[in-house]
């Protein structure tokens, strides 16, 4: 489906979009302040996604910096038809993939399996924070390709079509990966709650 649908889904009002387009144009021309604003607009989202993917806030931030650097480097290649955030997400996932393939990650793998780095933020609702821990732990045990579909669809709220587009995969692949991911997660969570 067309990327235009993503525009609708993500509640970006026209004026926001215009100002963002302006920022992108200035950044492309070399305006560092404009680029910095762009970064600030999207940093939470990108860091958030990467955190969920990598189960580590520190690694996520490092990677996020890479992501924005790459974005800067290929700013010229960005066509204004796509949404900037979707484009960023693509770069983010690619960067995450490269990271997972790297030797640095392979040595951290064992730690991540049982990582408790992701802290509960909502002090008030202990139920939710427990859930979050549960989910995060389960997530971290998935293989990257499954993890990313879960992050996009279940957590970021993308529709299957939008996720397929962002990941540049056929929707069937996305569905089957999601199926596997959901089944695996259920197994993991039920196992840990049975303790």
């Amino acid at each position, binding site marked *: 489906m067309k990327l235009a649908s993503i525009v609708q889904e993500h509640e970006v009002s026209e004026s926001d979009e215009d100002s963002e387009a302006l920022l992108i144009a200035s950044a492309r021309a070399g305006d560092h302040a404009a680029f910095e604003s762009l*970064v600030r607009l999207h940093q*939470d989202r990108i860091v958030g996604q990467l955190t969920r993917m990598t189960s*580590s806030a*520190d690694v996520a*931030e490092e990677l*996020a910096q890479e992501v924005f650097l790459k974005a800067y480097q290929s700013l010229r290649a960005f066509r204004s038809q796509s949404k900037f955030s979707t484009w960023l997400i693509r770069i983010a996932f690619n960067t995450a993939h490269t990271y997972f393939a790297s030797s640095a990650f392979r040595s951290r793998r064992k730690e991540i399996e049982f990582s408790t780095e992701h802290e509960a933020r909502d002090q008030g609702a202990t139920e939710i924070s427990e859930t979050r821990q549960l989910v995060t732990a389960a997530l971290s045990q998935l293989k990257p390709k499954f993890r990313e579909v879960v992050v996009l669809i279940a957590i*970021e709220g993308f529709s299957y079509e939008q996720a397929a587009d962002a990941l540049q995969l056929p929707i069937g692949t996305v569905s*089957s990966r999601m*199926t596997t991911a*959901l089944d695996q997660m259920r197994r993991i969570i039920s196992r840990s709650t049975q303790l």
Partner: protein
Amino acid sequence: MKNNIASSDLHRFWKDELAQSDKVRVAQALENSAELRAEFESQRKLFEQLDAVRNVPARVSPDFSKQVLKKVNSWKKERLYMVRNISAIALSFMLLVSGVLVLGPKVSAQALSSALMYLEGSAGALMMLLCVPFALWAVLKKNLRLSAGFCTAALSLFFLRGFNSTFFSTKDVHIEQTGSAHLERQLPVYNDTRVSRSLEVISGMLERMADQKPADNRQRQPASAGTLSEPVQDLALGVESKDARRAATGKELVVPAFPRVFVERETSAYQPQSASVAVLSGERYGQYSENPRINVSENPVSTFAADVDTGSYSNMRRLIRQGMLPSPDAVRIEEYLNYFKYSYSNPSEGPFAVDYEIAPSPLETGRFLLKVGVKARQAQAVSDKGWNIVFLVDVSGSMDEPDKLPLLQQSLQLLARQMRPIDRIAIVSYAGAAGLRLASTSGADQANISRAITELSAGGSTNGSGGIELAYEIAKQNFIQGSVNRVVLATDGDFNVGTTSFDALMNLVEQKRRSGVTLTTLGFGQGNINEHNMEQLADQGNGNYFYIDSFREARKVLEQDMLSNFEVLAKDVKLQVEFNPTHVSQYRLIGFDNRKLNREDFTNDLKDAGEVGSGHSVTALYEITLSGSPLIPDALPALRYQDEKQAAAPVAKSDTRFQNELGILRIRYKAPDGDRSTQADFPLLSSKVSGEFKSASKDFKFAAAVAYFGQFLRQSQFARNYTLNDVNSLVQEAIAGDSDEARREFAQLVSDAKAISGQGGRALER
């Protein structure tokens, strides 16, 4: 998958994302199957849980965007460098072409030589690729001269080790790390040492091809930097080098080595005191501020690590002989002082004996000098256990200078001749034709050892897995318990010994030290020597760093002082002096600027310090101000919020036991293979204070002269009250009637330094 309904279908159904037809299908399936409904219920729980994790605010550092911008900026800089490099290549190539076509091979050879000096590694590779089509064109045109020229250039560049190593083994450069992530990005490090030899090969070949006599003068021509015009030089010189050049033209500073194209400055992460490294053309020294004058009432304790390196002295000698003064950062006064032998008595019991002398300073009125000498016991000349030595030798192209590999070979022969049948020596080479050159051989087999040394040659492409791991492996295989097991690293500044970074190298050295194999570093040659790194490695390896500038020095290090340089009597040796405020109001430790320790480090056995070899001595010089001296202690600015404690009269213990002590020297040390330290105390009696400098010993006078000379070269703030002339008179007086060669040589150096600094006076006016 029940009834062909996958979990994702259920999920999409729950999210209401399905098209109408699919929606109906799923709804019907749910109706028909209780099993599916149950499954859906359990799935629903998961869906809700996943939903709950949404909208978690990410914890982003407040300066995240700034960090990103920083990365953007450095990327831009890299790109700029690349662009400038390519322009430099293109420009030099144009020169080459015009040279070949218009002015003939000899000029083009010179142009190529100069051009190559600015190009390294991957730049050289690009040049080669550019030469190839031209070579083909020349061959097709049947122009013998041109095709010979271009083919040779292309082939020579291909064999340039820079090409090989850049593409086949890049060094990692750690990007600034935030948090716990370690992302290593590979950046090629520009390293100029490999080009210098190759360019001679190329120009020689080109000239021979054109039936010209090859240049007889094979020495490097620093002046050829002038064959290219200013703009091209500016293009090739990085910003840092330009500042260095500007600085260098003002004073007599370090020899100008080849300007480098955009070098990544290596920052050492090891030194606990953040030492910034001064880059002057290619020689690198650490920067440390000198010790200040300290009031005993505030801080009566002076602690430092015993250090017996001497590299700084021989380096200074090398420079003065060339008519230059060393950079202040290269001056380590304690190494000057400790280069010389003083007559200290051997310890009668225990590993150390202390000799000290106190007399008025000859050049600073009102102040006294305290010279303290710690002498280590001389081990028996012949020990019953053999030594296990592995030499790790740099054989890169840049080592092919008379003051490098050939000198190293002579030094090795010297050492080899002293190896006894119970000793073992092995040789591993790196950075050129790397690998095992001599398996661990007994000293009885002099013929083989000598042959292996003679066969060492610089150059050749990097291949084989020679390097430090191999060297340590051999040391381990031939380990001799309770004796000397040492790797000696000999290089002119290249550390591509097979580790990925300098930090990794440091870690390796430390690891191996713990297993009992120590490391000594020997520096050769000029223009590339990185004293800072060499010293650090030696420190880490419980060894010493020596700079070998001549065969004489090689004899000193590897023959005369060999026993004390290789056999460690005590390790992690720390010295501490506590001054008695009754007698001393101020003190200043001369030298040991980068050896200072905190007071609590003295008893901390985990803190690494210096190593002292058998028969070695460590001399330290303090400038002290005695209590009751008319000299007012340097005043501190008054406190605003508190009342200053009464510091006028020093608070001394009323215990009269210490009435006759000026201070006390404490030594803490460990056995070579021990972990716990032992302490020995030596009181410094005030009765030893001499009233006149005239009546002090020759050693004392000489040491004073050395220290003041060192301060002058260091451009110390405490050198303002005297001139080099004063130092010269002092030295002359100190060596009167002395036949010691080293001391006479020192006097000559002082006199030369006087001439260099323009304080010599006019010959005709005398």
